[in-house]
């Protein structure tokens, strides 16, 4: 059924259709509307076989999900930003134990300085935690990915993180096609755990493993993710047949057939990139887009195939590996069949900085002209940075960085968008 609703509400509706059994909630922007909607649904009796637990921290949220999943319940939680970092230890634990928890990450920047707006730093900080990481381009895809995530996670006995851009998607009202309960039931079988805490068949879960076997246990986690790479395309196809939508999968290409430059990105910015690419195509520029839906496991073969014909690759990423540059582009470089030097990193949209068609068209044109540096910061106020550096050179006690920058800029309130 087509509905015009907020992204968070759409995701909550999708999660509810998946018949979750334990939901743990701790508030953090911009994820809160999702668990609020689910809490309301449970309280109103809409999910009779579900426990909604208001916990005291994100660390507890993931820990409660771990206990619930180990006892055989379908467990779900949602978080963002600092919350994801606060639960990080339990995030690794969930995947180490092989518990198929599904978690929404409403992507948001990490402080300091504190910032509630969107970028991908939170999810990227957990890229090696052993979870499957899926990135949604639209609210429709966010909705669909959650339904796929439960199936994917439970078949592989691995937790799945569905990443959607905070505010840009979570707070956007747009059209979504909400499937029926019967459709979801037909697609998603009941959770049959590989391991369960059951007095009838006692097992010890989470025992200590020494050097004699730790490598093997970790290898199995890797092997499972590699298996996911093989299975995900088939499941996406199955989903398309069942729901009529080409969402999920490993990657999506757009106008890449004859493209000389291909732009690689994750999440909602792909829409703005596609509009920019359409405009450039009208002017005869041969440019295309590769969207990464599945970031972990890294779909190396699919990326390699998609980029094979490109002369240059521009990786636009909403996170910064401080001291290195790009995280996504580091992965792209190992998968790009051409010279690694032809892969450019463009860091964009940090902390909610708007990514505009105008700015994108400018860097894409530079890529064609061969003038795009290996690492670029989109719309960086270079003069502001230079003045800050000068202040630090001039005086030892130069003061708090964020406050100085804002005073220099002359703004007191946050200027977003």
């Amino acid at each position, binding site marked *: 059924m*087509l509905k*015009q609703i*907020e992204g968070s509400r759409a995701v909550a509706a999708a999660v509810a259709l998946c018949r979750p059994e334990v939901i743990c909630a701790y508030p953090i*922007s*911009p994820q809160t509307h999702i668990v609020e909607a689910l809490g309301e649904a449970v309280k109103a009796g809409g999910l009779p076989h579900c426990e909604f637990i208001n916990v005291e921290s994100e660390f507890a949220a993931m820990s409660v999900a771990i206990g619930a999943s180990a006892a055989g319940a379908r467990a779900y939680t949602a978080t963002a930003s600092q919350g994801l970092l606060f639960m990080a230890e339990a995030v690794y634990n969930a995947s180490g134990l092989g518990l198929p928890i599904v978690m929404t990450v409403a992507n948001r920047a990490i402080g300091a300085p504190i910032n*509630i*707006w*969107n970028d991908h730093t939170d999810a990227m900080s957990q890229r090696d935690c052993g979870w499957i990481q899926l990135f949604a381009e*639209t609210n429709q895809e966010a909705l669909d990915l959650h339904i796929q995530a439960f199936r994917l996670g439970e078949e592989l006995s691995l937790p799945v993180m569905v990443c959607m*851009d905070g*505010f*840009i998607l979570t*707070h*956007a*009202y*747009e*059209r979504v096609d909400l499937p029926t309960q019967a459709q979801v039931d037909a697609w998603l079988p009941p959770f049959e755990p590989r391991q369960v805490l059951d007095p009838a068949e006692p097992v010890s879960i989470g025992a200590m493993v020494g050097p004699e076997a730790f490598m093997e246990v970790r290898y199995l986690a890797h092997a499972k993710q590699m298996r996911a790479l093989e299975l995900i395309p088939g499941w996406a196809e199955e989903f398309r047949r069942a729901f009529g939508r080409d969402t999920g999968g490993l990657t999506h290409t757009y106008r890449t057939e004859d493209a000389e430059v291909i732009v690689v990105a994750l999440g*909602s*910015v*792909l*829409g*703005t990139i*596609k*509009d920019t690419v359409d405009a450039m195509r009208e002017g005869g520029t041969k440019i295309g887009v590769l969207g990464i839906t599945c970031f972990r496991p890294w779909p190396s073969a699919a990326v390699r195939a998609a980029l094979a014909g490109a002369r240059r690759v521009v990786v636009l990423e909403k996170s910064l590996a401080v001291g290195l540059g790009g995280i996504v582009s580091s992965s792209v470089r190992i998968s790009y069949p051409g010279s690694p030097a032809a892969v450019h990193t463009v860091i964009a949209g940090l902390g*909610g900085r*708007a*990514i*505009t*068609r105008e700015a994108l068209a400018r860097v894409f044109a530079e890529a064609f002209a061969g003038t795009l540096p290996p690492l670029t910061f989109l719309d960086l106020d270079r003069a502001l940075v230079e003045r800050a550096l000068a202040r630090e050179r001039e005086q030892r006690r130069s003061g708090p960085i964020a406050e100085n920058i804002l005073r220099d800029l002359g703004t007191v*309130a*946050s200027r*977003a*968008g």
Partner: protein
Amino acid sequence: MFQVRIHGRGGQGVVTAAELLSIAAFREGRHAQAFPSFGSERTGAPVVAYCRIDDREIRLREPILQPDALIIQDPTLLHQVDVFGGLAPNGYILINTTRTFEALGLGEFMRGFHAEHLCTVNATGLALKHVGRPVPNAALLGGFAAVTGRISLASVVAAIRDKFRGQIAEANVAAASEAFEFVTRETRARSHAETD
């Protein structure tokens, strides 16, 4: 694509206005995307919300930099925030005020726009009259339907009933409907004055 930017203050239902507009467009079978300016602003702080309407899927995620229409929920913002930024000469402007453009000090500025695309309406007054609270958003959407003709009053009314329930829905419907009639009369009078 038709792009609307709504300026107001926290507590005036700015974000809700954008959402209602998107629901109204959706009910007409169109694609619509509403989103706020994502602040952690509290009551009274300047707030911006956006709504895009199109006949095909909307992929664009940048903030609306070149709006086709502006709804200004709070006239005290006129001289604080660059509310008119990026507005095309044929763009629409709807301001919630009891005063005229001249009295607001905008007479000269407004001569750059199409007269029949501009209107003021006492939306707060209508909200107080019908809803009992100074929340001008629904009334402004009624006025928006009238001044732009981009959306029908029936769709605005349906969107209000979709998002609100019972008495609150009906009170907002009444405010929107009266604003629609007022703006329809005003713009008709204005365009007559211009042709005369």
